[in-house]
């Protein structure tokens, strides 16, 4: 809302010189009307320098979308009286017969005021043009300009029709009929429907009520008589219409926030006064005011003690009364109340005030938020610890950053094509009704695509060694929104350094990280071969969590299929390893029920085995075969070397395994360890046709 300071001064004596408008701007800002800028205007002859205030008006204050509303605030700020000039209804000869007005739908239009004026259409005088232009409203002709002027001054939108273009001298406020349409003033032909309120003549629509007039009855240089309209329209109806036809105007913006139901007669009278003043009109009609159900004024109770109760500061009674009165409220003290209770009559232009707290805000705004004393609220209850999700996520971050992974946060919306590539169930993909772009139209069913995008971003910036993870929500119709973790790693596993050879990341690096992660939660993972469209066959595993004797599905890991990676835009040939886990099974606190076992006092014995075995055999299965005959003295099994190539049969792999034996109560003998080792070898030979090397 842009207004001239000189216009404000017409309504209220501002005790601030024209060189100190910044002070006025600060004062308005500090009571809730942010002044974005103060633009100086050149002085018109004999006048002090002027300025345009660019005010931000919050949606709850449609009354301040006009000079008068701001003037009331200024009056309250400086404790000065607002002058509202008296208006007479008749400004001309009253030679014309009144226009017939029928409201067919009083729910959507509770009040309609219409009046005729004979006019001479032409350009507006310079002072009027200046005020409109300051508000960035384009001058059109004196009639239209006057309606806009009144809107800027009183905050109440108006419209003018060319009477001669109406069928029959009548106005009907009704819902549009199916099949009707209107060409609005912007030249667009718009289909109408019964949800839309229109202003019609005896036959056809002439305006979309409260939004925009029709081109047919537009005021032009040939117009001789106008119908001035000022009405009150239901805010929800205007808002819906404005959204439905995709048109927001100065009028709809005000009506949908709530106009002043008592303003229409004043608006018409003011418009006629202005038309007379600029010599555009000489005769007019009586004003027709259709207002079938005038409402009783809103009265809100305000208890003085409640102000201090809410603000933490007792505010002087006289200050309360003075501020409310200057803002247009009428507080009346209830007899015999101390501290006082007021019955406050709310003016019709304050559509935002309906409760005691609303009035307290009025007082607080003008008292000044900065004058309220800061205090600290007493703690009456100990805080509960955060949910287990917080410890879980922090632990995941700790382990993964320790493993060299940096944290990513990616957008929740992704491409449908990509979503389907990682989650093939089309029925499960959640689609957005109004996506931001045509590209990212679905909610991610998996975190992987986002993480791959971040990988691409980094690779395009010549980064080869990348480890990223993300903790976030994924969305599916089947199981809703669930917390997940995704990891991606590529490039060197051991970076180039003089201390040793460089090594590329492989699948075992990934399984190692996941083992570390689950170990952080005091849990064990089990991997089983699996397949997925976006992962390389034979290098894909289902990740399960071992909880007691049960297993719970945790997710999937593997090498990213190069074709999928390419389709996403990933360049370069280095293999990418990824995993995605459901975080819910990891939510229970780690080590919560752990009971420590005594630290071993006895020495242990180690035995190394080298066996040749089918390469397709899952490691977990081999470990189980070793553990069964190993008995309770076998305390650890470690794969210390893996070799394929010369000397090893095709399809086989050579594994070196280190076995550690220990008894809790005695020193184990070599013979006992050897006997267990022999049994393990026999089991491997028998179950897996392993060859001892």
């Amino acid at each position, binding site marked *: 809302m842009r207004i001239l300071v000189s216009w404000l001064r017409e309504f209220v004596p501002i005790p601030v010189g024209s060189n100190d408008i910044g002070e006025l701007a600060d004062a308005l800002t500090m009571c809730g009307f942010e002044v974005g800028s103060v633009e100086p205007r050149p002085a018109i002859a004999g006048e002090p320098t002027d300025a345009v205030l660019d005010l931000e008006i919050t949606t709850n*204050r449609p009354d301040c979308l006009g000079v008068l509303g701001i003037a009331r605030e200024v009056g309250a700020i400086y404790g000065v009286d607002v002058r509202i000039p008296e208006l007479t209804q008749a400004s001309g000869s009253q030679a014309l017969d009144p226009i017939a007005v029928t409201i067919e739908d009083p729910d959507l239009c509770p009040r309609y005021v219409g009046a005729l004026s004979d006019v001479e259409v032409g350009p507006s005088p310079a002072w009027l043009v200046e005020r409109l232009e300051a508000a960035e409203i384009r001058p059109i002709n004196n009639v239209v300009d006057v309606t806009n002027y009144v809107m800027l001054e009183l905050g109440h939108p108006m419209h003018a029709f060319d009477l001669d273009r109406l069928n029959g001298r009548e106005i009907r406020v009704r819902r549009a009929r199916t099949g009707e349409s209107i060409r609005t003033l912007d030249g667009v032909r718009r289909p109408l429907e019964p949800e839309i309120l229109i202003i019609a003549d005896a036959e056809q629509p002439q305006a979309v009520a409260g939004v925009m007039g029709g081109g047919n009855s537009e005021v032009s240089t040939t117009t001789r008589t106008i119908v001035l309209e000022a009405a009150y329209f239901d805010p929800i109806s205007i808002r819906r219409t404005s959204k439905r036809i995709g048109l927001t105007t100065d009028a709809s913006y005000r009506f949908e926030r709530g106009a002043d139901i008592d303003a229409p007669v004043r608006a018409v009278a003011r418009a006629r006064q202005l038309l007379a003043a600029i010599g555009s009109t000489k005769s007019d009609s009586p004003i027709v005011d259709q207002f079938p159900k005038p409402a009783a004024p809103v009265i809100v109770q305000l208890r003085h003690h409640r102000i201090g109760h809410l603000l*933490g500061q007792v505010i002087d009674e006289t200050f309360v009364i003075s501020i409310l009165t200057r803002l247009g409220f009428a507080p009346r003290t209830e007899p015999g109340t101390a501290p006082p209770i007021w019955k406050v009559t709310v003016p019709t232009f304050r559509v935002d005030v309906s409760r005691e707290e609303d009035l307290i805000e009025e007082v607080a705004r003008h008292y000044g*938020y900065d004058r309220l004393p800061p205090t600290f609220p007493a703690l009456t209850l100990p805080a509960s610890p955060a949910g287990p999700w917080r410890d879980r996520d922090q632990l995941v971050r700790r382990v993964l950053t320790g493993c060299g992974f*940096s944290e990513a*946060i990616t*957008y929740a919306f992704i491409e449908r094509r990509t979503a389907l590539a990682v989650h093939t169930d089309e029925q499960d993909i*959640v689609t957005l009704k109004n996506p931001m772009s045509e590209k990212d139209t679905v909610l991610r069913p998996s975190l992987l695509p986002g993480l791959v995008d971040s990988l691409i971003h980094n690779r395009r910036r010549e980064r080869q060694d990348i480890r990223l993870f993300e903790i976030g929500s994924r969305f599916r119709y089947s199981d809703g929104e669930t917390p997940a973790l995704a990891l991606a790693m590529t490039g060197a596993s051991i970076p180039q350094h003089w201390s040793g050879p460089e090594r590329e990341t492989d699948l075992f690096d990934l399984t190692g990280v996941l083992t570390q992660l689950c170990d952080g939660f005091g849990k064990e993972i089990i991997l089983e071969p699996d397949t997925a469209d976006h992962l390389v066959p034979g290098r894909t595993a289902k990740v399960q969590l071992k909880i007691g004797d049960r297993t719970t599905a945790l997710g999937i890991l593997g090498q990213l299929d190069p074709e999928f990676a390419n389709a996403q835009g990933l360049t370069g040939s280095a293999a990418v390893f990824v995993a995605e886990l459901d975080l819910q099974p990891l939510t229970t606190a780690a080590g919560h029920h752990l009971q420590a076992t005594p630290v071993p006092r006895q020495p242990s014995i180690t035995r190394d085995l080298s066996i040749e075995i089918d390469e397709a055999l899952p490691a977990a299965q081999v470990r189980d075969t070793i553990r069964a005959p190993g008995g309770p003295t076998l305390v650890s099994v470690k794969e210390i070397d893996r070799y394929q190539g010369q000397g090893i049969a095709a399809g086989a792999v050579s594994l070196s395994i280190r076995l550690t034996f220990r008894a809790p109560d005695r020193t184990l003998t070599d013979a006992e360890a050897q006997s267990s080792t022999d049994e393990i070898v026999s089991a491997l030979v028998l179950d897996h046709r392993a060859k001892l090397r």
Partner: protein
Amino acid sequence: MPFGHRHPLTLIREQVESIFGAMGFEILQGPQVEDDYHNFEALNMPPDHPARDMQDTFYLDQPMPGGGTLQSTRPATLLRTHTSGMQIRYMESHKPPVRIIAPGLVYRRDTPDLTHSPMFLQVEGLLVGSGITMGDLKGTLVTFLKTFFDAKTQVMFRPSFFPYTEPSAEVFIDCAFCEGGCAVCKQTGWLEILGCGMVHPAVFEAVGYDPEHYTGWAFGLGIDRVALLKHRVEDIRLFYDNDLRLLEQFPH
């Protein structure tokens, strides 16, 4: 292998959580897909309320199971525009006193630019009890801001409008980039940092609290905005590129 780095937004979020945690606030997490009731209606924003325009919303084509990992009988129809829904859920299941913060990702259909992202991280706080005042709101937020930024930070409260608070305020801190005016603070010397206010009685009524008996306040803080200001990052979108050259500048 050198250590990886936590995301800067995580670092800020955890700092905010620590400060409020020390002031006795419980840290909550809630679903990002919400129903209209918890995101708007219970917050005094009935359908067709013009204030809904302040938060341009992403809607789902079809409703999906709501509540995330919490139980919910209402299917989710939109991406939450703030984490206030979590405050409603908490009040629905807990009697006062209430002292919570709810951090999380939120979504608004804003065209991306230097300071806007359609997804961003927010933290909201809520305190409800007997005799809670706007002075308490000021005292708590001033303490938070001085702890988070700098003991010398100047804090200013200014009237504003939110449908779910009355009175409502915007909070500003003195611009750390200049002395008296620069492009970041638009020559005002002040930076808007958060929105807050006394909980609107209609919100209390929606969750079955008696507004005569209880008062409270709420605030909302954009983590991204704070991160931009605190670490002088020039573009909010950088936070979602996950460029290691940015991430690696932050501590582990």
